[in-house]
């Protein structure tokens, strides 16, 4: 087991090195650079433009006139030797500080969403499997597919409109204007809840649907296995039996998805966050990519890649703990 973990950790190094190179190149692939994007944006909004001399000066200042490999080395060597992810062009602030500002909310939302998904999908999944092809099963399946199929940002827009039209809630962000700067109080907490359910439900819908389907399918497989029949034949109660054995086996997907949560913390659901105007790391990444703010985008991508790798490792370990069959394969 220890050998396994060590091996996985060692593989991490070349993987991350490769990822860092690829992300840096991919970010540079679109035409232009941060400054051309900036100029295009200025002119599009009718805010004038930069003179050629000014442009040249800024190009030098940002080091955009250097070849890609030099830019890459500046970036990666600072990360390796100084733990410094560089400065964002757009914000003019260190990438680390920008991420730190947005992480608490991102983590809160991700964790709440995960709990929501588990809380909803577990009972429904078990129910659907036990009462296969019942009215209830079809109903949940229908809504599950709907949640899976409709793009999150669309649900977001619709829910925002609904909450504006029928509840009169100020849309976007997590607080109404009157509470934004107020100290914490019960009404402020209530206001937070009134806004929080929207992103949680939106992100939850897709995840819930997937989890229900997987749990249902796994459980159906298990329920037909001879050991279930045997246990039933020996008079074991159906409910207890199901919970104790087949459900335990069918739970695997719950643990294998833990690995996806970690990167989700960073990249979040960028577009939904953007639409809902949430101050998470998702829109930060989206904007950085659009603006070709390469140090910011590169660092966010690198960190999420790191988290994917670590998350996968963690979920493998969790699975091994849960399921002896997995453990024995090492």
């Amino acid at each position: 087991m220890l050998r396994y973990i060590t091996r996985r950790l060692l593989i991490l190094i070349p993987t991350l090195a490769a990822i860092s190179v690829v992300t840096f190149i991919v970010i540079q692939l679109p035409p232009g650079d941060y400054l051309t994007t900036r100029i295009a944006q200025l002119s599009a909004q009718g805010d004038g433009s930069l003179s050629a001399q000014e442009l040249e000066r800024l190009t030098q200042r940002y080091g955009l006139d250097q070849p890609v490999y030099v830019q890459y080395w500046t970036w990666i060597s600072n990360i390796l030797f100084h733990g410094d992810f560089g400065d964002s062009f757009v914000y003019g602030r260190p990438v680390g500080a920008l991420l730190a500002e947005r992480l608490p909310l991102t983590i809160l939302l991700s964790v709440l969403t995960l709990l929501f998904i588990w809380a909803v999908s577990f009972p429904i999944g078990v129910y659907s499997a036990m009462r296969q092809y019942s009215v209830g099963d079809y109903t949940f399946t229908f809504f599950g597919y709907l949640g899976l199929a409709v793009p999150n940002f669309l649900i977001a827009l619709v829910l925002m409109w609904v909450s504006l039209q029928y509840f009169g809630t100020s849309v976007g962000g997590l607080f109404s204007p009157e509470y934004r700067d107020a100290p914490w109080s019960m009404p402020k907490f209530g206001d937070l809840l009134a806004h929080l359910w929207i992103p949680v439900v939106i992100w939850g819908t897709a995840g819930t649907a997937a989890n229900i389907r997987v749990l249902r399918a796994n459980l159906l497989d298990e329920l037909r296995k001879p050991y279930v029949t045997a246990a039933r034949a020996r008079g074991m109660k159906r409910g207890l039996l199901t919970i104790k054995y087949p459900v335990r086996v069918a739970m695997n997907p719950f643990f294998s998805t833990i690995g996806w949560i970690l990167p989700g913390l960073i990249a979040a659901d960028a577009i939904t966050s953007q639409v809902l105007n949430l101050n998470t790391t998702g829109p930060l990444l989206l904007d950085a990519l659009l603006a070709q703010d390469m140090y910011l985008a590169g660092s966010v991508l690198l960190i999420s890649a790191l988290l994917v790798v670590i998350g996968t490792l963690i979920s493998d370990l969790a699975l091994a703990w849960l399921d002896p069959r997995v453990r024995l394969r090492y």
Partner: protein
Amino acid sequence: MKRSSRNTATEISRRHLLQAGGGAAALATLSLTACDPAEGTGETDGGQGAPDPNRPLEAPELTERVDAGDLPPLEERLPVESDRLVVATAALGVYGGVYHGAVADQGDSPWLERMLAYEPLLRYDPNLDEFAQPGTLREITVNDDATVFTLHLRDGMKWSDGEPVTADDIMFAVNDVFYNTNIHATPPGLLTTAGDPCEAEKVDDHTVTLTFSQSKGDFIEEASRAANAVSPNLLFYPKHYLEQFLPDLNPDAESVAEEAGFGDWTAYWEDRIEWWNNPDRPVLYPWVITDPLNEGNVVHAERNPYYWKVDSEGAQLPYIDRLEFEIIQEEEVMLLKAVNGELDFHSRHFNSDANKPVLAEGRESGGYHFVPVQPTSMNRLVIALNLNHQDEELRGIFQNKDFRVGLSHAIDRQDIIDTAYQRQGEPWQAAPHPDSEFFDEEFAKQYTEFDLDLANSHLDAAGLTEKDSEGFRLRPNGERLRFSIDIANLFPEWAPAADLITQTWAEVGVDAQVNPIERSLFYERKEAAANEHDANIWAGDGGLKIEMLEQRWWFPNGGESNYATQWAEYYVNRGEGENAVEPPEPTLRQMELARQIPLEPDVETQKEIFREILQIAKEQFYVIGIALPTAGYAIAKDNLENVVESFPDSWLHMTPGHINPPTWFFTP
């Protein structure tokens, strides 16, 4: 020395102040005379009877701070009485309230500049007709041949931290900032004439002279425009704060920058001067940033206790206590907020034709109304064929005027207006707006008639007589004449309009393809160095109120002249430059004339020269225009007072800065 001939407002102020010794009566008269009558749409000071003696002259929150001893009294915070800038307001306001607004993201800092940082040296009137009205400077006087300008500062004016504004700040801006090649590659246009930088001299604490080697006829006009990337402001840099970041004035500047985590001092300097990201930096604005744009998700600004403008009764502006801009990246969300009545005033991002019905529907429940915005542009879209095309043969075809005229006749403009623009507009070439003093009907209407036969005969005359089996015209080399039109994703109407254009062009045998691309790619392709575009579409910027300032469609004057960016480079770099290509004789003549304008002290003569430039533009017919734009709109809450009834919009004037947001207030 002669007073600037256009400086009528200041003449009056001087005379009255001398007569009345700077009394309050003179200030009231000044306020009524100095500002354009168009602004006084409601009641003016005179209509409201005697001033209320109990009306506070400063915000209650400031009175509290004065009483607590945290702040000097009002008299000491304002400039001396004769040097205060009196702003005429439709109604006298009451203090208080919080303005709620929105800002898109980091790249949207210009919106903050427009809303709260409009403080040019001199000002235009709100309707953008008259310039040289008093601004941060009391006045600028000029000698007869427009070579020596005397800048008069306001005695007792203070930066937002209470430090006095003096001639040293201007000397600092000129010598240490604008002439510092580490910060500005070349001195800005405002301080040069024919490429020669001027010399600044401090006369006393409140007077500076600028001496130019040749006439600088556009100095007062440019000084009357707001500060941004293209129009530098000599009162933008508080010396007492910023000098610490310059190595010339502080030997430790480099280490200061390093300590703050910046690579070198220029990076730190650029970071520190961005007032929207640096709350420590003193400003001259009505509100001072407290929560910057690059932190958190709301930008806050609170009133500047040292603001130097007063209303006609001498009460210090601004009326509104605080501004809040929520950072909202998604325009749809902003739109929802607007419909919900959460934005007090907004004239950007979502105010498109397409969104107007939605906003119109929400007016009553949201408690806001529309404020018509006069466009300063003259066209919905302008088609620019690349006259500098890389391909010699295509270049020849595009440069043939008959070809362009033929294409222009082969556009059904009325159909485009009806289909893509809700029947709003009028067929129009890239020519001055009908409300412009340079309006020329012939220029505006030439070749706008939709006539396929006429189009065919022009295209034939251009030598494109051979056709292939599908009826498309052939180039001299025997290939089909085919090119693409780049469009950026800026206005949703452009794509359908472009489709309609290419359909009718196909009928006269010209095979053009619409190429919708991302904005930065669009820019990348049209740069003089790349020069990869065949043709493209952009809006018809300029043409009303800013005719002489925005010249991109009159002749190739910069990177935005999409039809000839290489000729433009020839102009910008005065014949030099890697990608510069010498333009033909008539274009050269335009460039020569354009260089002549600023050297001419007299405004009327400047206009005469400009008319000749327009005349050549009309003959050359560089680009094809489609339709005149109609008025846009802003939204304003019903309880927000003193907002003008309509206003012109131009980035050169940082709209809505010139309509005086400091005079806005909420109905109590």
